[in-house]
């Protein structure tokens, strides 16, 4: 039985939350759309004027914007497959029976990186990756590798961001995939293990179909979070050296907050938002069709 409730009751229950989210979520977004149609620079307020789609045209033809997008895409393309590969391995180990106490402890340890304040993760990188005083270079030294200038060199700084992203988010991917593995009905898994000794066959033909929803979730969330990625590289490198680690969110922050060009930053933000929505829809289409 579904209780029929009056509109008034419904409004009383839902109204406050809807109103609050509209005020903080929708209103600023509409304001951003409006500002993105203007020349609006905080240092040149007198020249403020309506320019139509000029900002969008400028952003779409701006190599700096596309370079930042390219960097963001490259970060995603390198770190997410690694996260999925290592994450799946961890999930499979944790999924095996036995060593229960150890596994509970490991699961607790896995929770730590993703909860850590992202800004602090970037600071940790600064300290641990320093060429002279950093512990990572000390460890590499034990293996006979010469000290690497991680933060100061453009290419190495990019690699450092990738490594740190992998550190923070691999545990997350592992736990999501572990949740996926537990959706495989135990009797099917048991039967398959009696049929074949190959773990790979079990993974490919029995577990993988059940993992698809988790994998789609990982792809969607990692895409959204990579596009949002700001705190960690910002505290680690400030987008530098040069613009080597200037990912899209850092670029928008620089244009808006350090160049005061809010009209342009808004246009960039809108394009990024559109891209996020587009990609999320694309993933759902591509992968869920297979399951059906």
């Amino acid at each position: 039985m579904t209780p029929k409730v009056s509109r008034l009751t419904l409004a009383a229950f839902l109204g406050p939350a809807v109103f609050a989210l509209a005020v903080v979520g929708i209103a600023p977004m509409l304001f951003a759309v409006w500002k993105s149609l203007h020349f609006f620079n905080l240092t040149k307020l007198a020249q403020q004027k309506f320019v139509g789609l000029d900002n969008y045209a400028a952003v779409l033809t701006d190599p700096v914007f596309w370079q930042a997008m390219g960097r963001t895409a490259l970060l995603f393309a390198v770190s997410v497959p690694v996260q999925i590969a290592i994450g799946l391995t961890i999930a499979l180990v944790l999924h095996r029976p036995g060593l229960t106490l150890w596994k509970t402890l490991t699961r607790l340890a896995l929770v730590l990186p993703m909860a850590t304040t992202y800004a602090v993760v970037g600071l940790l990188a600064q300290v641990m990756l320093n060429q002279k005083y950093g512990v990572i270079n000390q460890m590499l030294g034990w293996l006979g590798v010469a000290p690497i200038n991680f933060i100061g060199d453009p290419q190495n700084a990019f690699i450092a961001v990738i490594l740190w992203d992998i550190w923070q988010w691999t545990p997350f991917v592992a736990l999501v995939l572990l949740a996926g593995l537990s959706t495989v009905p135990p009797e099917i898994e048991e039967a398959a293990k009696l049929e074949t000794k190959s773990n790979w066959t079990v993974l490919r033909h029995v577990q993988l179909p059940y993992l698809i929803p988790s994998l789609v979730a990982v792809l969607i969330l990692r895409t959204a979070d990579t596009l949002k990625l700001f705190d960690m590289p910002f505290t680690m490198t400030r987008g530098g050296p040069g613009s080597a680690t200037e990912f899209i969110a850092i670029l928008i922050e620089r244009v808006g907050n350090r160049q005061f060009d809010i009209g342009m930053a808004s246009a960039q933000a809108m394009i990024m938002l559109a891209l996020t929505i587009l990609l999320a829809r694309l993933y759902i289409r591509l992968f869920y069709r297979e399951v059906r």
Partner: protein
Amino acid sequence: MSARSRGLVTEALLLAAICAFCVFPFYWMVTTSLKTQVVALQSPPAWVFAPTLANYVEVLFEDKVGVALVNSIIVAVSTTLLAVCLGTPAAYALARFEFRGKTDLWFWFITNRFVSPVVLAFPVFLIARDLGLRDTHLALILMYLTFTLPIVIWICTDQFRSIPRELDEAALLEGASQWRIFRSVCLPLAMPGVAVSSILAFIFSWNELLFAYILAPKNAKTAPAMAVTFMEGYDVPYGKIMATSTLIVIPVLIFALLASKHLVRGLTMGAVK
């Protein structure tokens, strides 16, 4: 050694490696925070040294990290309480009532997870400036609702659904109003969900940097935004940075361990059960 026990040893070693991988940066953070600047700048880095709490005393009382931590607590607690007050009735309505547009409404709540703060930060900066809300706790408390409110709604809707409807129906026959059923029957039973979503909302607010950095540059500055300012300048005070980091991270790690089973659920917002 038999093949089976060898397998177990390999597995145990693998688990230990995973734990070390996750925990080592925290070990390094805490030990560095106990080093004097001279020890911190030893090359190669020292593993054994005489620990000191001087960095903590210095950052808490001289560098105003203490004030920033208080700001962080005020903002995170307030936004969490507000999200619970606004979110639980909405979650109850989504779990119990049928109405047109329910799926759309639900979808809209959840999509907030995907919106980058950088989309909202500048318009809000302009609005807050005009309203005189810039650099106030209130501006941050309200903006953090963009992620705390969806998380409360999502987790509590699930929780309310798990409460048997018969309870509602019995109370309805007794003549109780919908509001009374929600307040006195269902909400007390939904407390586990309220607790979990509060912890998650607190963690996410505590960790937030971008809104804080743009909207609250001085008086309402939160701890993560404070930590950023340390990296400016040439003489990088490693011990102090790590002491600040430790102070910021310890509370979230405790909360994360308390809600460890639900943290992934919270981060995926329903994409994974």
